[in-house]
């Protein structure tokens, strides 16, 4: 049990997918201007990351590994994740229209989110079982969401402060992300 707990906490804080692994920077900077948007994007990433990790685990375990095709992992996972996102989009549009509408533009954006791909690949690199894979994906997605919402909060405050013109917008966003990253390194001592 302790193993799962540490895995969960570690994925969320210590090895935070965006602040420690530095994956998913594009949506991290692009959708962190508004807290409401950040929560929407974070929720969507959590959902897709868990689904993608689970399915890619199955693909790796039952298709690629038995035939010795591990080197096709990246290509295969891209295919799987893209198809999955498309499927989820169709499913939500039909079955849960309110959720589909609230996710809006974020759903297709996740297709190109390397954090999702990264989570799936890390699970394989670490040779997690299915349960650990799902748990790790969930924790990593939540870690992404926490980082995104925190940065959005900071950037909302920054938007109204006196800043040199050259620093406004993305530059100060990146600096803040770097400082947050340093701050998150403090979690290293937890495990």
């Amino acid at each position, binding site marked *: 049990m302790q193993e799962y707990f540490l895995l969960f906490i570690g994925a969320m804080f210590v090895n935070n997918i965006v602040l420690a692994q530095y994956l998913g920077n594009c949506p991290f900077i692009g959708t962190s201007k508004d807290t409401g948007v950040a929560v929407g994007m974070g929720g969507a990433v959590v959902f897709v990351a868990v689904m993608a990790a689970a399915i890619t685990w199955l*693909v790796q375990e039952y*298709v*690629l590994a038995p*035939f010795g*095709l591990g*080197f*096709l992992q990246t*290509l*295969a996972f891209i*295919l*799987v994740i*893209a*198809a999955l996102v*498309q*499927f989820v989009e*169709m*499913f939500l*549009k*039909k*079955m849960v229209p309110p959720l589909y*509408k609230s996710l*809006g*533009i974020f759903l297709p954006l996740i297709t190109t989110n390397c954090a999702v791909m990264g989570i799936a690949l890390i699970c394989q690199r670490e040779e997690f079982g299915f349960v650990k894979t799902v748990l790790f994906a969930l924790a990593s997605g939540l870690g992404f969401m926490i980082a995104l919402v925190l940065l959005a909060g900071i950037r909302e*405050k920054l*938007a*109204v*402060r*006196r800043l040199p013109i050259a620093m406004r917008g993305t530059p100060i966003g990146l600096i803040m992300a770097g400082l947050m990253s340093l701050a998150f390194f403090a979690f290293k001592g937890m495990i």
Partner: protein
Amino acid sequence: MILTSGLTLFGIGLLAAAILGVASRLLFVKEDPRIALIEDNLPGANCGGCGFPGCSGAAAAIVAGKAPATVCIVSDAEASARVAAIMGQEVLEREPELAVRDCTGGLRADDAFHYEGALDCRAAHLLYGGSKACPEGCLGLGTCVRACPFDAIHMGPEGLPVIDPAQCKACGNCVAACPRGVIAVSGMTARLLHLNQTTDCLAPCRQKCPAQINIPRYIEQIKAGDYDGAVMTIKERNPLLVTCGRVCPRPCETMCRRQYVDETVGINMLKRFVADRELHSGSRLPVPCAKDTGKRVAVIGGGPAGLSCAYFLRRLGHSPVIFDAMPALGGQTRYGIPEYRLPKADLDWEIQGILDLGIEARLNTKFGKDFTLASLREEGFDATFIGIGAWQASGMYAEGEDLDGVMGGIEFLTAHALGQKPETGNKVIVVGGGNTAIDAARTCVRLGAEVTLMYRRTRAEMPADVEEIVGAEDEGVKFRFLAAPARVIGDENGKATHLEFYEMELGEPDDSGRRRPVKKEGSEQRMEASLIIPAIGQKPDLGCLYDDGEGECPLETTRWQTIVADPDTFETAIPGVFTAGDVYTGPDLVISAIGDGRKAARSIHYHLTRGDIPVPETTQKGMIPYTLFKEIDFVERKKRAVLPHLCHGDDRNCTFNEVEGSLSEEEARAEADRCLRCGLVCYDRDLREEPFLPDLRDQTKDA
């Protein structure tokens, strides 16, 4: 190996495609092809001004019937017409809307220092609740400028946002960004329907005005030389500005902050200046009206309340018909106010301007006799407004007051206005202390009589306007204070010859705060009189509401003979029947009748268009306490303007020519410059070299 790899990837791809293919069949959502068509005709700006998530969201909403074809604020008329055509609709003329800023400024520069570098109104608002000296006014930090996607706002030289009407698309982003609510997107209809809210930036004068005229705005326009703009600002609340410019007792001026420096700003003089300018210009400024709704409203009574109600109903697109028992419209502004205060020709000109908007008037038509509420319904009127005024004079409750030679104040003034030449004789006693009493007295002076005005309290307690009392004194009216009528004495022919009266002394204050007069026993005296005019009070004549012989009134009434109605909506117990003016409030000011006439028109508009009548919880009813203060610093003293007198001596006492004139342009500009441009609490000081700047935050802590 290459073959295996290719086959594997192909297999995964094929499987994914197959799953997606099956899924697309199973999870197919039929989408209206019109959505894509409409989206193609939208500009793709994704500005969010329509309130939907992107243009596809807006297109879906149009197809779903949740948004009109004109929902896109960026589209031009042609694009809207194309979208409407896809939906099988036609775009009707849309009332233009614009963002407007409603704040006159204040001490923003000092307060900006306290925001500790937060250059955003929302941040300042969050940090400190905004400027402590200006709770509802503009903070001047330019958040709205940054929020505008069309570059239609810039900060003016005084730190207030300036909106460019040519660029503004009325998207409302600035309204959403402003934490103080000093910017609003509105068209004419919205402005006419707006009631003062406590969250609005309301200067004290504007809070006090019964008609809710945007006084700071029109003074500002006069100061800038935009006289036509000032007229239109006033006409958004008051169609009788020529009349009010002459007879309004100016409740607004009692609240003017300038009085704590020297004297109040001559607000009504300024109103008269611009009103007279239009009056003498030879043309009328065009008054816009909304598109015809086809709804007909019967307006019973053509006095200030009825005229105001009809005017605003017409501007809102309805078709009112005014019914009046008298031979000409105007009500008591025509029959109760003498010619020397309000020339009939000027009143005629003003009323004609209202009728020219497309309002029908049926004169000499008496309610209850020539028509009833039932007959109006049968004629197809969708709603009715009752504004029949208060035409019945109250009695003196003195013995003999029904003798010949006793005539109520309003009856006397009406008879005179109708040209009936009431017999005054040479000694007239007018009983009362209000404006009607003074009007009757000054009219009798002009008819050649020697007039004594009898009032039971002292001069200081007279409710009449001070200028009117002074005018009466100048014209030779004698005053007999602390005297009250006891009985009227007549001769053998039943004609009044004397008035017996008691001397009075002042006792304890009564409900009105004035000291109650108490009669001195045994102090009876007699005064000779050829005509006695009791002008003690008026009440509505509600005989018209009773069915003949039945003795039952279809409307609920009070013991003061006024009609009962909802104080917020002016709707009576009968749905669709509204009331306002003196018949609802009892005798009150012309400006109050005009203001309530507009509020009733607003209610009627909502009643006709949506059924219910919304009254926001933040509607301003009394004065907003924190906007009132008694000390004003750093303001240079300047003399208040004085209205010129147009006639003097015998020419004044013997004719009914107008007594007071209007300000010159130079005087008006100087008077407008005395205005302190008050926002809610803040005001613009006119003395630039202050010895020090007070620390406003410290003041707040003390408070």
